[in-house]
């Protein structure tokens, strides 16, 4: 698990979200440590907690597989690559920024990351749509628009979502009684 997390973390170019497809590949599809459904809950929790989603998700994956020891192992593994790479880079960062070869590779990877994100989103949206709940399906574009177009902070969106869901649960219960 240390190796896997080390590997995953070394490839999280362009923001932490890329860990979601990576974790999915190793823990869900290859090792079958948990299901796709569980991964979605974990991603939601990792995002609703403070801090980087990449680190939080690694911690949760570690916990799910091997308890608290797993958390420690996967967190160290998740932090190590950025620590080492940045340590090396910060020593001669001006040279690094100006390097054309580095820039070309990174520009290529940027497009690869974009494709990976779209691939992940298609699959995750399909899972939510499959539940056939208009409320949950509508939540995706609403949260997207609120954040992307109206620039509302993630905290407020997640909070509003919680309140809405609690209100819905109350309303549903009343309906039953």
């Amino acid at each position, binding site marked *: 698990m240390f190796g896997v997390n080390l590997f995953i973390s070394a490839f999280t170019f362009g923001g932490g979200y890329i860990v979601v497809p990576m974790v999915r590949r190793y823990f869900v599809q290859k090792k079958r440590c948990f299901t796709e459904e569980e991964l979605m809950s974990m991603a939601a929790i990792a995002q609703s907690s403070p801090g980087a989603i990449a680190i939080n998700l690694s911690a949760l994956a570690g916990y799910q597989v091997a308890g608290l020891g797993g958390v420690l192992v996967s967190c160290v593994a998740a932090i190590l690559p950025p620590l080492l790479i940045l340590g090396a880079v910060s020593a001669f960062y001006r040279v690094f920024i100006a390097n054309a070869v580095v820039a070309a590779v990174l520009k290529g990877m940027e497009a690869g990351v974009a494709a*990976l994100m779209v691939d992940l989103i298609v699959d995750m949206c399909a899972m939510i749509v499959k539940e056939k709940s208009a409320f949950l399906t509508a939540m995706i574009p609403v949260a997207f628009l609120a954040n992307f177009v109206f620039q509302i902070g993630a905290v407020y969106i997640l909070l509003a*979502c919680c309140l809405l869901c609690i209100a819905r649960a109350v309303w549903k219960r009343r309906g039953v009684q």
Partner: protein
Amino acid sequence: MSAILRLFWTFLKIGLFSIGGGYAIIPLIREQVVANSGWISSKMFTDIITISQMTPGPLAVNTSTFVGLQVGGIAGAVAATVGCVLCGIVICLLLHRFFQRHQSSIYVFEVLNGLKSASLGLIVSAAATIVLTALWGAQPVPISDAFSLLNGTALAIFSVALLVLRRWKPNPMLVMLASGVAGLLLYS
């Protein structure tokens, strides 16, 4: 020692308040490490953001490592980085256990399902920024010039990668490596 403790404390705060992650927390980090403490210059902070985009790892973690190194050497880097991720990990685990224990509660069930959808919406938002940056660059582009300013090479790598992903479900790391090699061949 006190410099190390201050690093730890400052990044603990940054970690605690950086909900949602990504670039929304840049102003918060800047305020703490440039304005309040004077640990690094404004120019250096901009450089860190550039480096963060070029190297793996989340922005907050990269910044903490970099600032920690500058201020307190290796011990500083470790203190700042651990401080930065600690709150997130603890809260995240507590939430996870809470949701697992109370799975049968209708409130918990509804909230967790809602959070799944909302956080997917936020992921879509982050992805939209990534796609736009990959195809058009980091600067905003006017709609009228959208076609002429589109980066054809990036679009080609993006489309091929997406096609391969949908068709064969390869290892994401292979896709990253292949697109890096493609970038090296096509851009230089």
